[in-house]
């Protein structure tokens, strides 16, 4: 009797990645296929593992701050904010009002920059080449402001434990207002290009559906959760850095499919502009650093602090043994936990949809692997 070959089986195993343009980094997905239908997926991650949490235990609290920028490198400002807030919580200090407002402005600007990269690459994966060039043009303007403020564009290390290192440069307010005026019409432009496009809708509507209950079971947060109809945003639920002072909406949608997540993220960019405009109108005068000791030695204790990063809940669980070095820094990365839902979203769909589903999760492998 002849030995059975793969032709006798209806199931085909297909390896995707780790070097694949639409996995947004080095992600390997093993797909089990029946014809074109996905029967199951298995993610292989860790290619970018650098041991960030181990490094933290071998640096001082201050020295570790620049390392967090290198996790979600598209949203370095958010990472830095979360870490600073966590250490400030341990020290029981709060950044002065001026520093808080500047933090809000830069973090929201970074949210826009991060969403822009998502939009461009997601559209590119689906086959729409043009938006990528448009979003990179606008993102450039945001990165220019980071550069003028702190000298770096990507891994900004913009904040310090207790406040800011640099005060604002002279034309900061003008630059920010000019960016907002320039940017809002661009969001309409993206919508004009994509929202009613037949191919775009054909590839996105009812693809990768994740209901609200499934989101909660998988711990999925951020725009993915909101697209499933849950009006939950840490900036509103557990406000930090003075977000409660600003008037903004939490955009939600109902179906929890890939198209809804696109709509939610576009609206989030508009809301970010709204926050920035309110914040820049009212930057209080005063110090930019709270009274923190030069050598940071938080008392023995622990804290969990999280912020609404562009991808979802970014949490830091920090433990101090009273010395100058962290005893433990645990990062709760939104991308890592959101990626776990990939199997549920892709199963039963077509093999072509896996690209749309990975794109819509907006993952950054630097943050997943740490």
């Amino acid at each position, binding site marked *: 009797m002849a030995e059975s070959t793969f032709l006798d089986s209806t199931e085909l195993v297909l390896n995707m990645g780790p070097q694949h343009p639409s996995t947004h980094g080095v992600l390997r997905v093993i797909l089990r296929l029946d014809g074109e239908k996905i029967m199951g997926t298995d993610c292989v*991650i*860790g290619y970018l*593992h650098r*041991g960030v*949490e*181990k*490094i933290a*235990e*071998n640096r001082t609290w*201050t020295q570790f701050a620049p390392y967090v920028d290198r996790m979600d490198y598209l949203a370095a400002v958010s990472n830095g904010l979360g870490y600073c807030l966590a250490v400030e*919580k*341990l020290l*029981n200090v709060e950044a002065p009002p001026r520093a808080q407002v500047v933090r809000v402005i830069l973090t929201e600007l970074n949210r826009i920059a991060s969403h822009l990269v998502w939009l461009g690459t997601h559209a590119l994966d689906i086959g729409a080449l043009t938006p990528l060039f448009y979003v990179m043009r606008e993102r450039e303007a945001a990165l220019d402001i980071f550069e003028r403020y702190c000298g770096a564009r990507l891994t900004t290390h913009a904040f*310090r434990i*207790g*406040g800011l*290192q640099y005060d604002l440069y002279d034309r900061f307010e003008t630059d920010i207002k000019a960016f907002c005026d320039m940017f809002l019409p661009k969001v309409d432009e993206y919508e004009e290009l994509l929202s009613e496009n037949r191919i775009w809708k054909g590839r996105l509507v009812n693809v990768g559906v994740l209901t609200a209950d499934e989101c*909660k*079971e*998988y*711990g999925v947060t951020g725009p993915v959760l909101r697209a499933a109809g*849950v009006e*939950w945003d840490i900036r509103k*639920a*557990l406000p930090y850095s003075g977000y409660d002072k600003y008037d903004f909406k939490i955009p939600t949608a109902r179906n929890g499919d890939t198209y809804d997540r696109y709509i939610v993220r576009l609206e989030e960019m508009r809301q970010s502009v709204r926050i920035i405009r309110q914040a820049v109108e009212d930057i209080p005068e005063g110090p930019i*650093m*709270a*009274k*923190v*000791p*030069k050598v940071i*030695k938080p*008392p*023995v*204790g*622990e*804290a*969990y602090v*999280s912020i609404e990063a562009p991808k979802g*809940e970014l*949490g830091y*669980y920090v*433990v101090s043994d*009273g010395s100058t070095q962290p*005893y*433990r820094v*645990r990062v*709760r990365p939104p991308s*890592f*936990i959101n990626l*776990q839902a990939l199997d549920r979203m892709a199963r039963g769909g077509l093999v072509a949809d896996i690209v749309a589903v990975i794109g819509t999760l907006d993952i950054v492998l630097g943050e997943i*692997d*740490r």
Partner: protein
Amino acid sequence: MGEEQNPEGSAPLSGDSASQQKPAAPPAKPAPPKPPPKAPAVMATTPWEDELTALLQERFGDRITGFYTYLGQEFLTAQPEAVPDILEFLKLEADFDYLVDITAVDWPKRERRFDLVYVLYSFARNHRIRIKTEIAEGERPASAVPVHLTANWLEREVFDMFGIEFEGHPDMRRILLPEEWQGHPLRKDYSILQQDTQWVRENLGIESGQ
């Protein structure tokens, strides 16, 4: 960095420098004021009491060993075998339906060396709490996957980094490191320069990754 010194931290220093500036001061002078008491070496927690703790206390009794607050954040400590029951109870009867995170902390000098930490959130209550439990080396705590699906990868990461195996986990494999890797890097006795040299040699064809 801020220019100012923490008043508590600077108090003993300024006392020292004052005595150095006047070395010839007569010994009859009154002793300098005592430095403020040092920060305690244990976490300065306060008890946590509300209707939720009363509910849990009634349901679990001795299996929950304490309710604490630190910096306005609430957590409870429990016996390891009680944790899945507590998670299930909190999910079904107290709306804590979102398991935010599972992680561990290594305290090698302690008899039960690991702290397992569960972070929970309730959308309905807008409340976040933590559950902490102590695990000894080689002990196999029960998996939380039957209660919260998100525990799957989180527990795999704890296993990968600390070597804590979860009983009843559907897929107890490493997640970030290669499957054949020896050692668990986030243990305190794993040096930052340490690596699995044999794995590096066999798979990367180099003597060292450093």
